[in-house]
């Protein structure tokens, strides 16, 4: 369910962010299209839309007023489809719109460039008012308009019922899910590279840094949290807790900037990645790892400390203490396994947050991972990459939670597994 939900969200974001991918792709208004006739430009956009299956319905079914044509989704270019949908919302009868469009399109090929522009504007009109204005302009410009044109402006569909249309599996959502599952992730809109190749070259960096960070944070939380519980009155505990809190409230980008400024040059304690070193040279990841660890260990350790303290005060521990079981055994064999479960759950769910943090880390420390990839892809509006990166992150988030559940269940067999 979680993955289906993530797919739906990613699909929605992609469609909402990029309304006219067909026009964008073939440079409808600029570049090569400048020398083409308007009719040819439109043909190119339609051709691209069809090749990308943009003329399929969005989902398995739709609910629409009964006067809406069933095949509205087949209209391309998408700008015209959107215009038709708005005219339908303006209560203009669907059949009338479609028959009028057919005649206008038929006329388009035979007209000279200056007159064709009037017809393109008509096809893109998205309200009665705009339609009426464009009809007037076209008529003034000497274009012979179809007879239905005037009727179109005044016609009303009247009272209509909502009807359910079933589209089956030939829809864009189904296709997006199928393509993701079967690894058909398409090609980048920017450089023509396979999206899978871009993602798989970036993924190892992010997985390595975040995987190492998660393990390190987990171990630190247990060790530090236990120490804080066992030695609560020592001055070192108070000082370390204050330092941990201070580092936690310090923004990651600032911490990273300071680390770069003081720990790379001129001190040269840590190397900074120039991108030229061997992929197997892990020394360049030490500083980013340190920054992630510094910014997060305080929160997790405090959280673990609280859980451990709460376990420590439970009756079963006090009973065991009375029976003379040694403190160390009490801590590691009794209290710790119970206190650790919330931390595992927290770490399991932390992957998406760590990837967001990776964006800052990867840009500042010059690491070509997933964070930097999604940052660039968003800037360049490379939706095929963005869409699949969101799904991959979603998949790992689900995997993290699933793994955390399994582990928790192993530690505490009384827990039942449920689908998150």
């Amino acid at each position, binding site marked *: 369910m979680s993955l289906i939900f993530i797919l739906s969200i990613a699909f929605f974001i992609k469609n909402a962010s990029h309304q006219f991918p067909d026009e964008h*792709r*073939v*440079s409808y*208004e*600029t*570049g*090569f*299209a*400048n*020398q083409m006739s308007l009719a040819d430009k439109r043909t*190119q956009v339609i051709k691209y839309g069809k090749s990308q299956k943009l003329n399929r319905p969005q989902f398995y079914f739709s609910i629409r007023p009964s006067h809406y044509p069933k095949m509205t989704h087949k209209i391309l270019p998408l700008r015209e489809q959107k215009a038709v949908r708005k005219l339908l919302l303006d209560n203009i009868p669907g059949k009338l719109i479609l028959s009028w469009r057919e005649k206008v399109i038929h006329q388009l090929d035979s007209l000279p460039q200056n007159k064709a522009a009037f017809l393109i504007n008509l096809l893109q009109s998205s309200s009665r008012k705009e339609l009426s204005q464009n009809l007037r302009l076209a008529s003034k410009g000497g274009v012979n308009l179809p007879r239905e044109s005037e009727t179109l402006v005044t016609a009303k569909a009247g009272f209509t019922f909502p009807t359910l249309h079933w589209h089956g599996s030939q829809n864009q959502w189904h296709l997006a899910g199928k393509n993701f599952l079967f690894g058909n992730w398409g090609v980048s809109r*920017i*450089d*023509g*590279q*396979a999206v899978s*190749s*871009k993602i798989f*070259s*970036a993924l190892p960096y992010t997985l390595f840094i975040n995987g190492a960070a998660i393990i390190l944070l987990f171990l630190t939380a247990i060790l530090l949290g236990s120490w804080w519980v066992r030695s609560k009155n020592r001055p070192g505990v108070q000082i370390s807790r204050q330092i941990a809190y201070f580092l936690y409230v310090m923004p990651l980008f600032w911490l990273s*900037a300071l680390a*770069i*400024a003081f720990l*790379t*040059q*001129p001190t*040269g304690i840590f190397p*900074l990645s*120039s*991108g*030229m070193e061997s992929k197997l040279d892990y020394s360049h990841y030490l500083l980013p790892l340190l920054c992630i660890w510094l910014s997060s260990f305080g929160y997790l350790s405090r959280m673990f400390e609280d859980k451990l303290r709460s376990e420590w005060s439970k009756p079963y521990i006090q009973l065991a203490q009375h029976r003379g079981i040694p403190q160390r055994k009490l801590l590691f064999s009794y209290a710790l396994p119970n206190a650790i479960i919330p931390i595992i759950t927290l770490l399991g769910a932390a992957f998406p947050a760590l990837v967001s943090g990776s964006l800052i880390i990867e*840009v*500042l*420390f*010059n690491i*070509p*991972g997933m964070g*930097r*990839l999604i940052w*660039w892809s968003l800037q360049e509006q490379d939706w095929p990459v963005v869409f699949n990166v969101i799904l991959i992150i979603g998949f790992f988030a689900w995997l993290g939670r699933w793994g955390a559940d399994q582990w928790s269940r192993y530690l505490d067999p009384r827990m039942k597994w449920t689908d998150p």
Partner: protein
Amino acid sequence: MRNSFQSSLLLAILLFGFLSCTTEDKESAQVESIRVRIQEEPDRLHPILSKTGISQQIESRIFLPLMAPHPDNFSLQPILIEKYPDIKEKEDGGMQIDFTLRNNLRWPDQSAITVKDVDFTLKSIFAPGMEESNLRAYFDGVDSISFYPDDSLSFSFHLSQSYILALPATGGLNIMPAYQYDPDNQLTNYTLQELKSIDSSSAGLNMWSEKMKSPALSRTKIHGSGPYALESWETGRFIHLKKKKNWWGEDHPIDNPILTAHPKDIYYQIIPDESTAIQLLKSGQLDIISDLSPLQVKEFIETEALAQEFNVHFSNVLNQYVILLNTKDKVLQDRSVRRALAHLIDVDQFIEEVLQGYGSLARSPIHPAKPFFDSTIQATPFNPQKAADILEENGWLDLENSGVREKRDAQGTSHSLKIELLITGSSLSQSIALKLQETAAQAGIQIEISTLSFRNILQKMKSGDFQMTPLSIRSSPFPYDPYQTWHTNNIGGAGSNYTRFGSDSSDAVIERIRNHLDPSKARPDYEKFQNLVNQDYPVLYLAAPLQPLVTPRNIKLPLTAMKPGYFENAVEISADDLQKNN
């Protein structure tokens, strides 16, 4: 047709435009390798399909054009051709340009570079499936290419109309090896006109175009007639170019840095963050950084320890910062408002504070360093009182003491002097906007700042739905063709006359400029054009900035007029420093 040629210059200059050479006249030695910071990854390395400036920078080390401008005087210089081409005007108003390739030009496989390769390159721009190529607009004016049966090195481009910039545009074509990109000679069977009109689905060229666009020919097997070939491309990390063995250029001494190949290896390191790049430069892991903010540049100059280790170079990349005004806007259509705004820009302060002094005054649509710039034009002085007086004289009054002036039109409708300034989120545009907002308020103009993405601003500029916006304009080293930006034919649609400037008289001058085949005869028209524009105040001029570059002190770096502002392929190390190092 000629519209496209004007735009083609941008490409031409990006590929091979050069301004001036360096620096010290010391003995120098060749450098083994050079490491250059690039801010982002190129989209691809493919002269027909690539779209980013970074791609074009790297491609210009791998592929060579027929002609390139000389860095000292901007004159076009033969590169792949033997001599300056013959240009003939045809009776039907068209042009014929006759080129002859150099003898003994060789591809890396040692086969000869011939007219077949020129023919292939031109045709591939218009082949079905290559619709996304930006070059289509630029070469649309070429009707056909013809050859001579007894001469495998000569060819002619035939153009439908004569045009002042036809030669820089056509001569800028980067020639690609047909044996690599079209091994089965699939394009040979078609004429240029057939390819322009052919329906892609019936052409049987789908396989060819898919291969042409594939990563294999854009990211791996890249070599051309230039001194370097792509050795490796590590996604997100670096691009490595290696100097070719037995490169033909070493036997042809041509005085142009484009044909220089000093380092054996060039590494373009992808480093998005400026502070990271500076740390890498300081630790000796980088050799050249460009696109630094003025404050960082100042630190390199003023900090003694840094100044001892690093050199800051400035290249004049023919950029101008301006603010565009929509002259058809309901408020800005009043020339007096535009004139008042010109008096509210403190350009000297802008150059001193925002650019840290690294720039000069801009005064005309033509960059001060370009040919035909009218040096008699004076900058509009900063004078808020004068601005207020101009508005007062023209009926803009602060009737309600609100601090904002207003005026009633003939219909009695009141318009207040509230002007929206569209900016991107860049720190530069924010500085410009805040300063103008402060000074405009002194004269009773309220500036409302709106932040949008550049894509959205461009969309608004195209549709005329804007009032003011700052813009960075880059131009070529060739004579300026004002048609695309200033002619009324280019208001709206695909045109770039965003200010909506123009009149019959300005259009006539612009058309005359374009019709001069000999640019030197166009000087009076250029002067008239600049005066017409400046009298109408469609643009507020800010500055012509310099492009700063930082390198270690021992590196001698030749500079160019165009982005990126330097020739990394012509870098040398000072011999003194070499000896010291040894």
